[in-house]
């Protein structure tokens, strides 16, 4: 009886569109497709999807334009698909409101993970930011927003105030890549160049406290050249 989530796939390449549809359908989604930006906007107007999977290279307009238009009106999560690989684009797209970014060529598993994660954001986004919640937990990790401390395997890892602010920013938007600028703004309200370095140093300290093996982290992941991501909760 559970009504299926709708994913709108905006992609002009037929072959990709087909396999993406099949993959998503076998994973329990209902798939709508659109070949152009215009069509995508129209379809959204008729029926808002749960997730929008948006290719940036569309025949009629730049995918970024489409995303801007969507963001003005709707709040459903957007997953951007692109063949451009520069980290600059990545940061740009994320800061403009995309929830996730996936680069061609991608595997099926990667695609499903990405869509699921994005879908969860929209759902949890509401709940998680209710001020009631003071403890956030995942795996062995607990963040206590009231006492300003974090526990790993029941032990307080002794965060400084700055580290706590940084960590809670990441945890609150877990699963999403937060750009350096966003984090600097969050921690210092200052995005100057020196702060960029300070952020990395702060983050290195935080990761050392948090991760058992910082080389193979399981909580905070660095997206090089873009920012950081806390694991999905």
């Amino acid at each position: 009886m559970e009504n299926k989530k709708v994913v709108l796939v905006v992609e002009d390449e037929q072959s990709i569109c087909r396999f993406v549809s099949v993959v998503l359908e076998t994973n329990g989604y209902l798939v709508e497709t659109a070949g152009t930006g215009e069509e995508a906007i129209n379809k959204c107007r008729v029926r808002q999807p749960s997730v929008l999977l948006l290719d940036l290279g569309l025949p009629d307009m730049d995918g970024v334009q489409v995303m801007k238009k969507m963001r003005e009106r709707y709040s459903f999560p957007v997953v951007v698909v692109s063949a451009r690989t520069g980290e600059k684009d990545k940061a740009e797209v994320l800061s403009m409101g995309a929830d996730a970014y996936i680069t061609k060529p991608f595997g099926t598993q990667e695609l499903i993970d990405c869509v699921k994660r994005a879908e969860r954001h929209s759902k949890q986004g509401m709940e998680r930011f209710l001020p009631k919640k003071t403890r956030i937990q995942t795996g062995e990790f607990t963040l206590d927003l009231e006492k300003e401390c974090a526990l790993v395997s029941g032990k307080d890892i002794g965060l400084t105030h700055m580290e706590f602010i940084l960590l809670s920013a990441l945890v609150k938007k877990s699963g999403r890549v937060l750009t350096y600028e966003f984090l600097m703004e969050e921690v210092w309200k200052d995005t100057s160049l020196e702060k960029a370095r300070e952020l990395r140093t702060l983050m290195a300290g935080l990761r050392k406290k948090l991760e058992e093996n910082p080389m193979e982290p399981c909580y905070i992941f660095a997206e090089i050249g873009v920012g950081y991501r806390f694991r999905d909760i």
Partner: protein
Amino acid sequence: MKIQGRKKKEKRINRLLLLKDILITLVTLKCTTAICWNLRNTEYGETQIALLYVLAVLLIARFSSRFYFGLIASLLAMLQIDYFFMVPYFQLDFSLNGYPFTFFVIFAVSNVVSMLMLQIRQQEKNRLEAEREKLRANLLRAISHDIRTPLTSIIGSVSTVIENYSKMEKEDSVSLLMDARAEAQWLVRVVENLLLVTKVDGVGISLRKTPELADEVLSSAVLKLKKRFPDAPIEAGVSEELLFIPMDAVLVEQVICNLVENAIVHGGQVSRIGIFVRREKDKALFLVEDDGKGIEPEVQRKLLKQGLYNGLGEEQTGKRNLGIGLPVCKSIIEAHKGELLLSNRAEGGTSVKFWLPLEEEGKEA
């Protein structure tokens, strides 16, 4: 912004060159004048003075980078001869006999030399261009081989499955499709490497260097590798000190991945692959080592000597080679003004070291 930066840099270089040319001209002329001044009253006398000036002008035309400097120098030389060494001394007087002739000779010398220099420079440029073209052709040949083989296999396996869909055993078709997938993944890596080549090989190298933390780059590379080779015995470590290294992180990450992949694919029986970073004076040392079968010295020499493009040793055809991987790695590191060394470890296995400078020299905002 980047283009602006490059333009600025070009401007700066241009200004420096101009300064150098002016300096060369002035110093040479000054010296000549000084020598001539001393010779003035000896038996060498005036006839030699003109010759010395010719020599000076010739030298200037040869060593200055702009071709009009030879002409300027010849003019200056004439004025000086007139002013210092012709009666009446210390004034300019163009009416003297033979003056136009001397002037003509000096002018002609400077002109001819300048022209020659121009020609030589052009030829040099052409030669480099031709070499580049040749390398490019080599690359294309190597690439098309690298691409054609997996494509053949993909088309073959997929068509087999399509044409015999109802007749085939399920496992057979799955294994064919899995082959196709593996080949396609190989293609992805070829294309990635190709993109790297275009990045590193651009005429104005377009490295976008930002200070990155060594452990972030390393851990990101390790995560990627673990995804691709879940069972690989990878061990990674960084020094306690936080190392900020100016680099194009995507490229360096790719280098690390390439090196580890080489160890996995070509190392034979590898039970341990180590990746470490530490400071060495004003450089960061990256070390990738394994305990596999090592690389034969012959191949080693070849791998590092060959340019970016001759990635394929002909005799390696048949098995998947080191591809354009290692030479690409080397040029990426060199584009960072770093250094890459390949050696066999005494206790067996390969060790690849590369160094990246920690501070950006001639910092550019």
